[in-house]
């Protein structure tokens, strides 16, 4: 099996490409890796001179009541955001499913507007809105904003899932005598389960890390990113590395699960 694949010119291009890719990935991941690494360094310096591996800082933040409260609030916000946005996304997607192509495009494009819309503007808009109607700032105010941020992604996931959805299966179920609710429960929902799960994980990832909206709407009920922000301004504190590491690990894990569940979707 002799091949004729001798193309020395391209080998040089490939090496250069690998170097470029490596540099870029290094640039993208270096800050995260550093925070993670330093969080395990028991001595309070920032330059990777490791004395030992220690969970000292994690212990410190785990016993800090402010941090724990913030963590709980962040978790709550993430879960509620996920459930609400998934529910809204699902009803929207199903409602749009049988419409004409043109309407479908509109319905699936409009929720994408918040994607490009700057968080600062949305943040002050929400703050103004809550002020105008007399609602206070709280974690729930933040959650309401997070849902809007998560909706574009949820819609994107559902739009893709609907593209692949075999509506003929619903007709088959009806032909066999199933009523609308039964069809929904036994056919539609199970088939959309990967998309729903993926959308929920994605929403959780977005909400957990979200900072700007929370800044303007959470008031005294701080989320974890807000705590991190507050303490950054107080100066360098090695405990921040632990908080930061926790945050980034959580969001990356959630994103990972989101990717896995949608990849596992059977055609």
């Amino acid at each position, binding site marked *: *099996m*002799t*091949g*004729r*694949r001798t193309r020395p010119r391209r080998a040089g291009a490939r090496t250069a490409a690998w170097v470029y890719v490596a540099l870029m990935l290094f640039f993208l991941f270096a800050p995260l890796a550093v925070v993670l690494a330093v969080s395990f360094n028991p001595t309070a310096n920032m330059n990777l001179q490791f004395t030992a591996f220690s969970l000292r800082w994690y212990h410190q933040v785990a016993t800090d009541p402010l941090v724990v409260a913030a963590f709980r609030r962040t978790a709550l916000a993430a879960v509620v955001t996920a459930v609400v946005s998934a529910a809204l996304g699902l009803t929207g997607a199903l409602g749009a499913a049988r419409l004409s192509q043109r309407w479908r495009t509109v319905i699936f494009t409009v929720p994408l507007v918040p994607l490009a819309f700057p968080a600062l503007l949305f943040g002050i808009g929400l703050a103004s809105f809550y002020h105008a109607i007399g609602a206070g700032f709280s974690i729930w105010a933040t959650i309401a904003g997070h849902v809007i941020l998560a909706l574009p992604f949820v819609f994107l996931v559902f739009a893709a899932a609907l593209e692949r959805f075999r509506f003929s299966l619903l007709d088959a179920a009806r032909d066999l005598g199933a009523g609308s609710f039964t069809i929904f429960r036994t056919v539609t929902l199970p088939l959309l389960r990967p998309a729903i799960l993926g959308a929920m994980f994605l929403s959780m990832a977005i909400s957990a890390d979200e900072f700007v909206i929370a800044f303007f709407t959470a008031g005294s009920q701080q989320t974890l990113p807000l705590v991190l922000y507050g303490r950054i301004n107080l100066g360098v504190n090695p405990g921040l590395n632990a908080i930061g590491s926790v945050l980034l690990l959580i969001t990356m894990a959630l994103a990972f699960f989101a990717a896995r569940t949608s990849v596992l979707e059977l055609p």
Partner: protein
Amino acid sequence: MTDTSPPVVRLDGVTKYFGPVLAVSEVCLEIRQGEFFSLLGPSGCGKSTTLRMVAGFEQPDHGSIFIQGTDVTERPANKRNANMVFQNYELFPHMTVLENVSYGLKIKRVPKAEARHRTEAMLETVGVSGLENRRASQLSGGQQQRVALARALVNEPAVLLLDEPLSALDAKLRKRMQLELKTIQHKLSTTFLYVTHDQEEALLMSDRIGIMSQGRLLQVGTAREIYESPSHPFVADFVGSLNAFPLRLDEVTGLLGVSRLGQAQQVTVGVPGGTQPGTFLQVAIRPEQVRMRPRLDADGAAAGADGKECRVYGMVHDIMYLGPLTHYLVDTPALGRIVSQQLSERRAAPFRAGDNVVLSWEPDATFALGAAGGTAGNGA
């Protein structure tokens, strides 16, 4: 009719592996100037791979490819004097028809005026003049097909490569395009190398056909040669349909073997010299060669029956009316089920299910499919 000009395309022992799979095996082929040549075979037989190797999109692992006498095996696809019409047309969506068709000319730095002139002339030849400024996405399937053809032909390649270009069209349009392609090819005298899995298409359009199966080129010849003298059991079976059955030779006289099946039934088949009586062969007869007549009691010596004709008795099992043709499925005790194809009679078929009939055919219409004695071709 010997063509003394050098072949436009020559493949010499071309072989290609995809990993452990042998996709194309030792293909040797010569395509003559101005010829419409088709590579015909089932999916996965290697015909598309062979075409892509001529185009330059795949590299053979062994063997060489020559275009107009030059060895182009090592040449990249954009430096060969061959152009391809793709199955899904692959028109550039962001360009107009004019830009699409003149793309190749622009690369060759043909002056703008000349390029425009050639483009418009070619668009007229393929039948889509007036669409120059439309975007590719605004055209119908048939129009896109013609533009793709124009885009390739305008470069005046030594050979035009066509990769199942009509498979995306509906049946009526296909038939029309088949004839049009043939007309265009004649008009321009360009050499065409055409790949298809549709035997009817190949038979209709080609000057010569190469049958491929499992990477090997089994036989090359004109439509008639391939249909009437298949050199390989696969070829016989793939092109047209067959009645195939095993036969034990009772006698061999010269190059004719005879098998007596009792009650004045017999089948004869051409055999190579030296074949012994008692040999088992797999033989075949084409349905349209099988004649039918009602069986009379005195059929042992029925009038007009040639002593040499092949003759089998049977009963009509089923009748399939196909419009211009009718298929009769006849069950014969001697040879199993035989299909006889007849031109349809008006109003009613001359036979009904349950009728006793005599099937007969010319003594030299039977051919052997192999087992002992089949001749395999070498694709010259």
